[in-house]
């Protein structure tokens, strides 16, 4: 499928989603939908570094929280419209991602993974001790009830939903473009055998830095609207381990080889979690994700997409 066709199709599907959501009389659709869309962005972003390059990032929460807290900072210092905040969140997280990558990507993948864990904790400690953005007490963001959009007044949550929908579309288009480009080809060689890639002329450090920066930036962009969504931001919620687990579990369960896997994983797991939170409890729903991750990683390492591909291959004579 041509790239232009894909982009148009994605935007059409996004628009259809928005229209469908508006038909439902309950606003809950937008709240739940926002969470699922957020996961699509996080899962897709994680997969660019994790699935394509083979470098595991345990600190997704850190990049997400950076986006959220840069919003809080500007909310207090210099209020701006959310789209601008999204760009800033992306920049901040992208720069931090680049910096961290520069420090640690020359080491083995396992060292990098541990460093990402460390980064998350260091950042959380810094934020907890920074009173301007609320520290451990948290920060309140007052969001308006409605906002003027395309000539009408729409509920604010619909506006946030629309923004996240756009981000999700952007993330998917970016992932697919990378996948099919020379950059994605280089990523695959790094994942398959980094030593051989270097020997074949692939500038592995440069490519890994690009992946880390893009991945971090996307996660930061996902985090930027979060304070407006949730109204009250505490470090515990911004840095919650749930984000790390979900951003790893969703691509690994969906399938890490392409952009489809994180999308499927996010929609599937996101929906399951929403249902479980409402029916059972929020701790159990997160346990389900953890168990599914371990099971899939052992039994179906190529995820759901891999399972489907295997079935199709067996069907063929």
């Amino acid at each position: 499928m041509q790239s232009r066709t894909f982009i148009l199709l994605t935007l059409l599907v996004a628009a259809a989603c928005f229209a469908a959501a508006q038909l439902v009389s309950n606003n809950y659709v937008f709240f739940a939908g926002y969470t699922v869309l957020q996961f699509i962005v996080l899962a897709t972003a994680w997969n660019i570094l994790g699935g394509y390059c083979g470098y595991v990032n345990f600190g997704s929460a850190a990049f997400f929280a950076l986006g959220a807290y840069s919003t809080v900072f500007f909310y207090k210092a210099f209020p701006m419209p959310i789209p601008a905040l999204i760009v800033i969140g992306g920049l901040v997280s992208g720069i931090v991602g680049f910096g961290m990558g520069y420090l640690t990507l020359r080491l083995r993948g396992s060292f990098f993974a541990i460093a990402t864990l460390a980064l998350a904790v260091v950042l959380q400690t810094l934020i907890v001790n920074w009173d301007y953005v609320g520290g451990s007490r948290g920060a309140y963001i007052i969001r308006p009830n409605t906002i003027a959009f395309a000539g009408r007044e729409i509920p604010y949550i619909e506006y946030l939903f629309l923004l996240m929908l756009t981000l999700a579309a952007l993330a998917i288009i970016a992932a697919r473009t990378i996948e099919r480009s020379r950059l994605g080809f280089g990523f695959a060689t790094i994942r398959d055998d980094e030593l051989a890639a270097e020997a074949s002329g692939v500038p592995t450090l440069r490519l890994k830095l690009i992946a880390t920066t893009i991945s971090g930036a996307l996660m930061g962009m996902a985090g930027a609207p979060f304070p407006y969504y949730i109204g009250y931001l505490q470090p515990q919620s911004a840095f919650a381990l749930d984000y790390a687990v979900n951003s790893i579990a969703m691509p690994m369960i969906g399938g890490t080889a392409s952009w489809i896997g994180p999308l499927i994983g996010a929609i599937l797991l996101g929906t399951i979690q929403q249902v479980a939170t409402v029916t059972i409890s929020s701790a159990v729903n997160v346990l389900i994700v953890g168990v599914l991750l371990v099971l899939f990683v052992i039994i179906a390492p190529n995820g759901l997409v891999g399972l489907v591909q295997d079935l199709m291959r067996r069907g063929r004579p």
Partner: protein
Amino acid sequence: MTEPLLHIEQVSKRFGGFVALDGINLEVAPGERLGLIGPNGSGKSTLVNCICGTLHNEAGSVTFDGRKMDGLPAHQRTVLGLARSFQLPRPFASLSVAENLRVPLLYAVKARSGSHLSATELDERCVEYLRLVALDHKAAKRPRDLTQVEMRKLELARALAAEPKLLIADESMAGLSHSEIEDILKLLMELNGRGITIILIEHIMSAVMSFSQRLVVLVSGRKIADGNPAEVVRNPEVEKAYLG
């Protein structure tokens, strides 16, 4: 006396307390066919790794084509014209056989200043290199579908696809039949005829003897012989290393 293409001076490498390479000095002239032999664990692959930048030597320096290689990452050395095959094949498992060859063409060859490679030319060269090692019928297969021997050929072809000035072939012939060895030797001779300098690391003595203009022997990280192949094999120390 022309400048050597490769100049290795006092290169040393240790792993903790273990000395893998101890002050290696070596020169390779442009267009030369050098054979490198030595018992297992003598440091041959470590030397290759240090030359190519996969490992960093603590002491000594490597100069290639008049440029000091110290500190340069491996990929830059490949762009500059240094290519190697790995002793244990390391194919890109998720790419097809043809795509495996695309990688060095895309990243090493295309990155060289003054090179213009169109997409069709790239594809053509992929096929050409595959044909050289008789793997063109398996172009669309994955490495896991290849036999051990075919994987070694792929490994060699991938090094060739980097279109190097100096090619280091690290035990590419292990497990090959007699006629296959002949084919590879013929290929290497032809490449040498085109001007490519070749270092052949092998255990198959007949191949090494018929191919090399000069023979170097490495034992326990030290160079113990360097010269005319016929004389080197008569050297008592070399005999001792292999038989003693």
